[in-house]
């Protein structure tokens, strides 16, 4: 195996977290930084002809090639896991920018109590109220500590929205339930399409507090503190599963890459498939020495480095630690080990599919343009008399109306699924159908985790990652509750017919839910229950940091990207201000 000349820093993965760390290190230090990305290089101009639902939404051109690597799934430890032979319930991205290229760009922050979920919940309801097999934890960082970093992320992306709480002062029209913000959003809210405005009116009359969805598809042209300018959104509707052809949707390639490209000390190597992190044994202070990868020409190479950041999405971050034998794999039977524990997804579904008399013109909008409300989120409702803990947000977003996916969605009263009767209904309802979406918290459980599959392998012969994952009563009851509320709202909006969400049964890998998969390398306050310290530094391998949602002990209702960016900024500060001066454990 060929050893390449050593570099100071290797970053595995060129998505939001990897490129943000590359930008921070590249601009604030003179360290040599190499980013290794499996997929291809790409820029905004590559997206000029991607507005094709078939190739991008149905055939999933921007996602990881499942023929080379996927994950396996089982619902509990008694089952044999099966490979997800095609992507379904979540969509791992590939290429420079990663999943940050094809996202919807919905950008709420987490509620403050999410970061202290175990202690706050136990304090209010008593530990006995928690589900028997829960494994929820506090994060080891608080909202107050993260707020400044959230604000940096807002400014980086140029977020559009309306603040509801500036330094404790509640502001009508924003989310009055959110954690305090130090400032108003950098850009005003996006325009509100018809369906979303109907939702806002109806929810207001029902006593909720709707606010514009915080959006990284910015409402007008914006120049961020790094001097990077992006266009304003034109509401073309091609956001989720697409890259933005005009760069209005903030993506790593249009927000971070322009800065990185100017830095001579940072380079990005595409087509680099990292298979192992080389490291010394723990008794030798557990130092990571570099990474072994297959380069774009198919050659195995060793890249030595002083400092290593894993930034390759939840699934691959976890898998690389397991494949490299760094730390002890979690065993749910004994509770020993930490790598792979606390796998969470999100309780996300179309709670009410509503059919109206009037056309909605739903081809206009963006992935994040719309209205939502938080009255039922977190612990904002009293759960004393409810059969579940925590909650989520309901929303009415636009731009999920592409015709292959949506034409043929008809009211339950239409029984035909093909032929003239069905066609007539499909044509009539295509633009008269709106979806009220729910996004809810997913608690962590002892039995939901990741390890290496004993049967199935990737293209190199390495074991696939195995997910053991299923819903519990808490999520099922939460879903029922949210569905009933959504149906009530749809009726208030004037829907003639409503298809309610049928309910959560077993975890369904074929229904797209969200690409918000968390856990596996979680952060925490003690090494026996977490992989990383609160600075995302490995507890035992101090020159290894792991970035991204794999660090989340459990998931919140909100979309993860702003929180991921805030945590990455915080880690960058800790590395630059403290670690580089004295390379050792930060906590």
């Amino acid at each position, binding site marked *: 195996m060929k050893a390449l000349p050593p570099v100071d820093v290797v970053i595995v993965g060129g998505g939001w977290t990897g490129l943000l760390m590359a930008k921070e290190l590249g601009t604030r230090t003179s360290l040599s930084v190499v980013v290794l990305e499996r997929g291809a290089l790409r820029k905004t101009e590559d997206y*000029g*002809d991607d*507005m*094709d*639902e*078939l*190739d991008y939404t*149905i*055939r*999933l*051109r921007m996602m990881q*090639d*499942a*023929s080379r*690597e996927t994950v396996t*799934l089982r619902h509990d430890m008694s089952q*044999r896991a*099966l490979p*997800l*032979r*095609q992507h*379904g319930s979540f969509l791992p991205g590939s290429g420079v920018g990663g999943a940050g290229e094809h996202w919807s760009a919905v950008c709420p922050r987490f509620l403050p109590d999410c970061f202290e979920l175990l202690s706050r919940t136990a304090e209010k309801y008593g530990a006995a109220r928690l589900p028997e097999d829960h494994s929820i934890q506090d994060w080891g960082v608080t909202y107050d500590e993260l707020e400044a970093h959230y604000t940096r992320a807002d400014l980086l992306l140029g977020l559009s929205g309306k603040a509801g709480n500036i330094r404790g002062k509640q502001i009508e029209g924003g989310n009055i339930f959110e954690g305090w913000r130090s400032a108003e959003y950098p850009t005003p809210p996006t*325009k509100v*399409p*018809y369906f979303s*405005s109907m939702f806002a009116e109806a929810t207001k009359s029902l006593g909720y507090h709707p606010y514009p969805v915080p959006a990284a598809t910015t409402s007008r042209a914006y120049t961020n503190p790094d001097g990077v300018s992006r266009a304003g*959104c*034109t*509401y*073309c*509707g*091609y956001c989720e599963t697409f890259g933005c052809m005009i760069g209005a949707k903030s993506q790593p390639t249009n927000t971070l890459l322009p800065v990185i490209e100017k830095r001579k000390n940072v380079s990005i190597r595409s087509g680099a498939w990292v298979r192992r992190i080389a490291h010394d044994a723990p008794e030798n202070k557990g130092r990571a020495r570099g990474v072994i990868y297959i380069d774009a020409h198919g050659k195995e190479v060793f890249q030595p480095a002083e400092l290593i950041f894993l930034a390759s999405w939840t699934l691959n971050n976890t898998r690389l630690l397991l494949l490299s034998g760094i730390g002890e794999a979690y065993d749910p039977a004994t509770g020993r080990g930490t790598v792979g524990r606390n796998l969470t997804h999100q309780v996300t579904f179309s709670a009410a599919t509503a059919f109206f008399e*009037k*056309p909605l*013109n739903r*081809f*206009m*909008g963006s992935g994040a*343009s719309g209205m939502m409300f938080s009255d039922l989120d977190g612990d904002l409702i009293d759960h004393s008399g409810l059969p579940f803990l925590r909650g989520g947000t309901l929303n009415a977003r*636009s731009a999920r*109306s592409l*015709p*292959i996916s949506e*034409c*043929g969605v008809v009211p339950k009263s239409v029984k035909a*699924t*093909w*032929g*003239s009767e069905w*066609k007539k209904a499909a*044509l009539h309802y*295509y*633009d008269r159908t709106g979806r009220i979406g729910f996004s809810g918290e997913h608690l962590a459980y002892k039995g939901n985790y990741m390890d290496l599959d004993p*049967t*199935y*392998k990737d293209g190199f012969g390495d074991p696939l990652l195995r997910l053991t994952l299923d819903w519990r009563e808490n999520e099922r009851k939460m879903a029922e509750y949210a569905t009933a509320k959504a149906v009530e709202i749809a009726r208030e909006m004037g829907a003639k017919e409503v298809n309610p969400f049928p309910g959560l049964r*077993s*975890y369904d*890998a*074929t229904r797209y839910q969200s690409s918000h998969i968390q856990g596996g390398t979680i952060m925490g306050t003690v090494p026996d229950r977490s992989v990383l310290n609160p600075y995302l530094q490995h507890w035992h391998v101090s020159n290894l940091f792991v970035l991204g949602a794999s660090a989340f002990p459990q998931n919140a209702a909100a979309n993860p990207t702003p929180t991921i960016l805030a945590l990455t900024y915080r880690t960058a500060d800790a590395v630059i201000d403290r670690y580089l001066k004295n390379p050792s454990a930060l906590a």
Partner: protein
Amino acid sequence: MRRREFLTLSAASVGGVLVYSLDRKVSRLSAQAGQSIRIPLRFFSQSEALIVAAAASRIFPSDEAGPGAREAGVVVYIDRQLAGPWGRDGHRYTQEPFEENAAAEFGYQGKATPQHIYRQGLKDLTSFDTLAPAEQDQKLRQIETTLFFSLLRQNTVEGMFSDPIHGGNVDMVGWQLIGFPGPRMSNYDDVDKHFGEAFRPKPVSLREASGRKVRPSEDME
């Protein structure tokens, strides 16, 4: 290499020019009579193509609600998809062992590729294209729960509504039926207007909108 197969269609049955009337109904202007079009097939034999065309026409019929799978050229779309990476499972994980009877929540777990599924499924529809519509419907109801039918149904919808670059949705007939304008670059001036009334800009295809010669996935390796 197999003999080159062609699908011969009358010009009146595919293509043509579709326009909006003032009440936003779709209508066909003109198709040149007496001419026929020979379309080279990439996967199907001519007899298979005729069966698929007939079946797609029962799934998405041409009727009083407007044109259907025949006018959109759905069979050409399906032929190209099957010949391309999707038809060969180019991007599906195909390592053994296969669990053919897995629960639905795990997605399709079988070994057969879309090409195989079509080829096998079409054996049950011999001479389907020569049956009367009512008999065709009866035949399709018999196979309604098969994997082949669910693929055929999904592919028919795709062929109706995907960009014309993929061979279906000829003249954007599918988009015109539902009032979808295609990849329209900007809705900035309209997104917060037209509340409660249909706003139906003239559709544009991806090639028109982007000004590029876009290469569809079925033409890639």
